[in-house]
Every structure is written in C-alpha cells, then in structure tokens.
C-alpha cells in the first residue's frame, strides 16, 4: 500500500503525514503527476488559501492529473473544498469534481469565525469508521454547500458539510489527523478500503 500526499508547496502537511506514519504506511510527499497517479491512495491536504492552492496546482500542471485519478482520493479541510466547482476565497476556480460552491462563514456573537474546535457529527448514512455523535476537530472559515454528496454534517448556525463523497473522491472538512480516535479510525478505513 503506497500513499501519496500531494505537495503544493505550502503549509501544514506535517500533521497529515505524521498521522499516516503512525498507521505504518509507506508514503511519499510529491507534486509529480506520475508518482501521484501510481499511488494506491492519494491525499490532498488542507493548507492555506484556496486561490493560492489552485494557482499552485495549475503551475504544477496537476489540475487534470488529479481529476483523472481513479484510486481513492481524500481531500482534507481546504483539500476538500478544492474538490468543488468554485470558492469565495479569492474567487478560486476549483477542481469541479463535486458540484457546488464554497462560501465564507459569517461570524456572529455566538459563533465566531473561524469555526474552530470540536463539533459533533451527524451522519446521513453509513460512514466507515465513524459513529453518529462523534466529536471531530474543525478549523475553517469557509464551508461548502449542502447537497446530495454530503455523508455527514456538523451544525454551526448553518449546516457544515463535514464529509462529502463522489465516486472515488472523498472529502473531510474536519481534520481527521487531529480528531482523536474517531479521526484515526476514519483514516484507517480510507487506507484499508471503503
């Protein structure tokens, strides 16, 4: 089992790679389309801002290679948002793998933004590794639209899609690598087959 973490050259892929290291996986961090295509699992980690990340993906010539992947792909946090059509963040034109847009959360007195901390998941169906009511760790200021591809949500004044899936693409808005035992079980299921 070989895992590739897509390295677009910014931010905190540290905690993601360490989490997979703990699962005992052979892993490469790379921006090489061939190395990514030949991995058994691909992770698009959550880093920085959508506009910057998409510019880097385009500069590295990764847009089409990522869309063409057939093996299980997991987008984490920003990596999940990039799977959608478009993001409010810097008006980024995203990968368009899952229909829908990513919008900025509006802060209120009771709900500051970023949405930061442990929120409870409500599952819309079976999600391998997770149980309804599990707390997982979020840290984000933008969230994607609700829709038919959402497998689990959290509530933050509006519905926050927490897990989305379409075909071989899976996305987690929360940080499974920092979500305690629930997050680890979710990553294990991604690795061992969904």
């Amino acid at each position, binding site marked *: 089992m070989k895992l590739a973490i897509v390295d677009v050259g910014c*931010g905190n892929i540290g905690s993601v790679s360490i989490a997979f290291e703990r699962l005992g996986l052979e892993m490469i961090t790379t921006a090489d389309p061939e190395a990514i295509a030949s991995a058994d699992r691909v992770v698009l980690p959550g880093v920085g801002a959508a506009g910057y990340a998409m510019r880097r993906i385009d500069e590295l010539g990764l847009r089409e290679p990522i869309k063409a992947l057939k093996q299980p792909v997991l987008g984490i946090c920003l990596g999940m948002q990039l799977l959608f059509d478009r993001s409010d963040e810097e008006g980024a034109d995203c990968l368009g793998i899952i229909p829908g847009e990513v919008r900025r959360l509006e802060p209120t007195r009771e709900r*500051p933004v970023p949405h930061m901390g*442990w929120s409870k998941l409500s599952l819309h169906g079976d999600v391998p590794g997770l149980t309804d009511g599990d707390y997982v760790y979020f840290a984000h200021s933008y969230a994607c639209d609700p829709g038919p591809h959402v497998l689990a949500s959290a509530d933050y004044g509006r519905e926050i899609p927490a897990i989305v899936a379409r075909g071989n693409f899976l996305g987690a808005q929360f940080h499974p690598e920092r979500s305690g035992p629930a997050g680890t079980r979710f990553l294990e299921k991604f690795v061992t087959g969904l």
Partner: protein
Amino acid sequence: MPARRIIPCLDVKDGRVVKGVQFRDHRDIGDIVEHALRYRDEGADELVFYDITASAEGRSLDTGWVRRIARVIDIPFAVAGGVRTREHAAACLGNGADKVSINSPALERPELIEELARDFGSQCVVLGVDSFEADGDYYVHQYTGSVEKTRDTGLRTLDWVREATERGAGEVVLNCMKKDGVRTGYDVPHTTAVAEAASVPVIASGGAGAPEHFRTVFEQASASGALAATVFHDRMIAIPDLKEYLATCGIEMRR
C-alpha cells in the same frame, strides 16, 4: 458554538516543561512528550506549548520538540515562542504543529500576521496577548518571558485585538497578567470585552483555580476555550472531572 475547549498550557524552557508564578521563578516539572500524552489521555481538547524565553532571547522555538509532540498526539496543538518570520512558522507547521501563536513579534511587526494568514490561513495564526490592567484600562505588555525585558507597549488591549484580527489572526489567547498563577478566577469582564471586540474565537487565560471559574468564563464571557496550567500540572483539577462538572452545568463538552 462547538464544544468549549479545555486547554492545558505547557511552558517550555530548554525543551523541558516548566512552571512559574506571574511569569517568574520557573521550576522544571518534566518531559514534554510525557505531559502531552498525559493530557491527551485525560481528554484535553487542545494543547499549547510556549517556549517562554525564546522571544526575549531573540530566537525562535526549537522545532525538534514540536515534531516529538506531533508524532505522539492526535489532538490539535499550538506552539509559541519567538516565531518572527514566515520561515519560522513554516518550520513549526511542517513539523506537525497545527497553529503558531505569535505575541511579541506581532507587536514588533504587525504585518507578520498578514503574511502568515495569507500563506497558511487564519486558522493557523493565533494572537497571544499579555494584557495588564492599569488606570482602569488594559494595556498590552511585550517580552513577558523575561522579567528584565518586559515592557508596557502603551497599546490598549482592545485596540490591538481589533487590529490584529483585522490583519488575519484567527484566534486570540487572552492572558490577563494580574490573574496569572493566583487561582482566583479568570478576568471575566475583560475576557467578555475582548470576545465582543473580536469576531474570532477567544481563549481565556490566567487565573483558573477551581471548576467554577471555568463555568463562569464559558457562561458569562463567551470564551471558546479556557486555558490553564498550574491547576492541571499540580493535579488540583482532573480534566475528566472538570468536563463532567461543566457538562452537568449544561456546557457542551467533548467527552
């Protein structure tokens, strides 16, 4: 809100966990990784590690211990201490920290906040504020890691919090200096004022001595989290008991 966060804070000096009172007289209380594991097991929601002398000594924290922590824990953690440049921050995040907390360097050069928020996202950028009450208002102090170098910046805390969050800080850790280590409760009015001035999560710090103090700061000041050191290190309050108590009070806790 999400579940309110209980956040043990570990002061680090020369790669060891230390504890002082009102920022003075630090004594060694043990190994970083052992402490990190203990708090993870007890149900801490997040951890903060401060290299307390880094900023005053003009250096950045040592990323060696950041990686040692990242390897063993599966909850978020922030690191602080002399992070002055994009490269310092990148090294902390690259070694597995989830957030960097900046305090004195942000006061030296506020543009640092924008640079980090732009490249890493606001959720990675925590503003640490040491707030000191004087003449009926609160002012920001700098270089509080060293008794000799501590200085009053003359900046009003509320003004600085507004500016820093507009520049992109995604969270504020508000340390009320007069309350630090004295265990008489958080400064609820000041924390409330800062939470109202900021549209980002505010973490209360300084003064925790009893479970009721956590209840008050969550209920009255809308704090997203409460940070404490002594009461956890000295085992005066056990985190599972604290969470149980707060949940009974109707405050959402992750358990």
